């Protein structure tokens, strides 16, 4: 193999890569926040007594989980405008990723809810709380703390999935990496650096989330 490594072009475009990384993180954070809301609703839907509600929630979760995310991204960006829902690139991607995250988080929340001892609800009832207050004050906070590790894993996956935003030309890290690649032909350097940035970012995020988990965990 005869290849002269030359990282100059990478260092010159450092700001672009950083910007791309920032946008990717931003997209992941917004999407997981919205996705948590959707996932919570879907989780309660899946456990609902009403058959229709249950059916809708289960259909949503299994449809999204079994569809490739790239198809969802392209569908939302290229096909939804036909239904009159035209979003710009970034909104469309956030929309897709939120819906996508919602389906995965719904499953996480559902098992979190099922695992809670039913005595918690009864204790809430016994001190005169309504079902709604029991959910907001007891069930959701306790479940949330219990599923934090899965939540972290989901966030990291979502962050990696933001690389797919490049498919609809959202200028995140992978998009810029391709751009640098095409413009400079420093192929190996570009992809080495790009994937290293992802790997390191994932490490750092994982470590930070781990600390957050410890801080938020129920003390014992």
């Amino acid at each position, binding site marked *: 193999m005869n290849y002269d490594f030359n990282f100059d072009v990478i260092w010159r475009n450092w700001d672009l890569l950083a910007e791309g990384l920032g946008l990717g993180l931003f997209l992941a954070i917004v999407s997981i926040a919205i996705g948590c809301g959707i996932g919570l609703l879907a989780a309660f839907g899946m456990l609902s007594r009403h058959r229709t509600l249950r059916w809708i929630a289960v259909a949503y979760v299994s449809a999204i989980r079994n569809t490739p995310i790239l198809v969802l991204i392209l569908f939302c960006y290229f*096909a939804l405008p036909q239904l009159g829902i035209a979003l710009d690139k970034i909104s469309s991607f956030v929309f897709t990723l939120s819906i996508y995250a919602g389906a995965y988080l719904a499953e996480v929340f559902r098992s979190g809810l099922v695992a809670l001892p039913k005595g918690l609800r009864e204790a809430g009832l016994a001190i005169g709380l309504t079902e709604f207050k029991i959910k907001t004050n007891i069930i959701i906070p306790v479940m949330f703390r219990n599923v934090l590790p899965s939540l972290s894993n989901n966030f990291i996956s979502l962050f990696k999935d933001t690389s797919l935003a490049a498919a609809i030309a959202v200028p995140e890290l992978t998009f810029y990496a391709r751009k640098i690649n095409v413009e400079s032909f420093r192929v*190996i350097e570009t992809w080495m650096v790009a994937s290293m940035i992802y790997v390191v970012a994932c490490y750092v995020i994982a470590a930070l989330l781990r600390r957050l988990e410890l801080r938020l965990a129920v003390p014992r």
Partner: protein
Amino acid sequence: MNFSLFLTELWNARLSLLSGLGDTILISVASVILGSVLGVFVGLAMTYGAKWLRFVVRLYIDFLRGTPVFVLILACFYILSVVGLDLTAFQAGVLALTLFCSSHVGEIVRGALSAIPQGQTEAAKSVGLTFGQTFVYVLLPQALRQILPTWVNTATEIVKASTLLSIIGVVELLLATQQVISRTYLSLEFYLFAGFVYFLLNFVIEQAGRAVERRISIP
């Protein structure tokens, strides 16, 4: 939505869509098989390897799992052509998915093996089995049952990830669909259709997995 027009166009495009589906299946099957074989070795090395080997394999897994599959595919596609390995886009894509699959399977195998109580190995040794025999007759059969559900899950992940090969120009189901869309402008209908086909593929895989799981479960 114009349903009869869609059906007509679907019929017209049946051959290219079927060939796309064929490629999707071929890519997935090849990647899952190659990736699983590689993954078993990765898992073994992680569990029973010497310290330096475990370290190297750990790096391998962490690198592959920290990198988005899409980046992995792009990297394989672009880098290999530069270093003179002349792979087609199809081969580069399968290579990327194989690596991706192996890191997942490696992690699964390691988890399953380390979950088997130490006593099993000791009991096998005490009846005079070699390490190889212990692995094949005692550990693997137990680990397999634990591995199966997650392994099936990985297989569906690979099917979904195979769509990413469309971006490097492999005409699998998604790119075949996109080509039809660019001809017919029926994006809503055909994207829904593609989504539905993927859903079916994964559904079938999951059901098959469950059926096998039921059959091999220890009474």
